[in-house]
């Protein structure tokens, strides 16, 4: 890859935080409406997001384009790395390795997750108000549930460890003490964010989400 790789790498790093990291946290909060408010709470949260002005523009500039760049360039970065934890079993080297592995898992998971949700809305199979039902169908299917748990844990690890790396790569946490404290903070974030995403995922398994599922059931049986 020719051109200024320094700039590409910096853009990749920045996009991971702004907007993707922010969107990730927003997604966590929206999902949590399913835990706090049940089907109606989740429906309201989804409708609130879709009532924002210029939704297609927001989606394209804050999600689609950054996600595509970060994902595709990230795959190239993963390809450029050797994994040598067999020889150097240090904690940070494991984190380096998992950052690449979790990135690839997250990429696959996001493509699939988008197909099951956003794409189905786009082609008119389900409405925004039926997404709670779609998630009920997915989370009550054991295989999908396992896939989603793996995907979510990988994504949260990639986010938390990526935030740690971002602070180093932009020269914010410079010394070993700052980097160590930063790693403790992002470990706590990893636990909290994982817990919140999984609580939402398991909330969707509740029977109260079932009614909304009937409309969506036709296509989920196919996939």
């Amino acid at each position: 890859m020719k051109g200024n790789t320094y700039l590409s790498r910096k853009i990749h790093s920045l996009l991971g935080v702004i907007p993707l990291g922010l969107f990730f946290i927003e997604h966590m909060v929206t999902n949590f409406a399913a835990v706090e408010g049940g089907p109606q709470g989740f429906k309201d949260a989804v409708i609130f997001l879709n009532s924002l002005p210029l939704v297609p523009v927001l989606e394209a500039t804050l999600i689609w384009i950054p996600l595509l760049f970060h994902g595709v360039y990230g795959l190239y970065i993963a390809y450029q790395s050797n994994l040598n934890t067999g020889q150097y079993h240090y904690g940070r080297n494991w984190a380096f390795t998992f950052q690449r592995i979790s990135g690839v898992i997250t990429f696959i998971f996001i493509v699939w997750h988008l197909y099951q949700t956003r794409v189905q809305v786009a082609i008119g199979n389900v409405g925004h108000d039926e997404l709670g039902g779609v998630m009920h169908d997915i989370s009550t299917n054991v295989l999908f549930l396992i896939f989603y748990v793996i995907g979510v844990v990988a994504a949260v690890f990639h986010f938390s460890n990526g935030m740690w790396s971002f602070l180093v790569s932009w020269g914010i946490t410079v010394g070993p003490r700052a980097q160590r404290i930063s790693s403790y903070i992002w470990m706590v974030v990893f636990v909290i964010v994982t817990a919140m995403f999984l609580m939402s995922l398991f909330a969707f398994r509740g029977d109260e989400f079932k009614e909304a599922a009937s409309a969506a059931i036709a296509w989920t049986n196919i996939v």
Partner: protein
Amino acid sequence: MADTTVANKTIKFIITRQDKPDAPSYTEQFEIPYRQNMNVISALMEIQRNPQKADGAGTSPVCWESNCLEEVCGACSMVINGKPRQACTALVDKLEQPIRLEPMSTFPVVRDLVINRERMFNALKRVKAWIPIDGTYDLGPGPRMAETKRQWAYELSKCMTCGVCLEACPNVNDRNSFIGPAAISQVRLFNAHPTGEMNKAERLDALMEEGGIEGCGNSQNCVRSCPKGIPLTTSIAAMNKDTTKQLFKKWLDF
């Protein structure tokens, strides 16, 4: 040499060998008589004196490079029992046997344990790891350096370009153009010098080109492997800060 051979005690070696730069590698086993206080270099010298494999068959002597024998020149770096380090300070008594010796294959192998570290010297040229003081007239004494700064800068100056950090780094490989940790730390060293600081921007620019500082993936193997205990990851993060500043300066000042 006084007879320090311990009766019936031997040391076993498994050495990865290669006859030519483009030849395939193979391993050979050696068993040599033990003497007190041996290091890997003195063991290799023993093999050189009597080039005989463990099974008794003759072979060519194993080639290696070494100079100072006190871990300051970096020439004898090799992979010893899975970790890159200097053979001169690898004491036989402290190593698990059989002792496995391999070349640092991140670099082009010349022969046996001899590697070509030219890319590291090219990297130093690329980042201008020197202080220009020549002029057409006497420029006089330069500015003084604060003692507190000198103390940490001295640690960075211990780098002997041995290549261990590049060998340990997962991002220094054929698919990646990353310059490696050593040269980045040298930019920090020469930018810290009061006279060197005058050319700070040139060195930072060199790190902001293809294969520069952006190749670091924060595995931090370098700082764990450096035989001189150089805070390489602190240097990289400090240069991340300076290159980031440089990036915004270039965008906004012109």
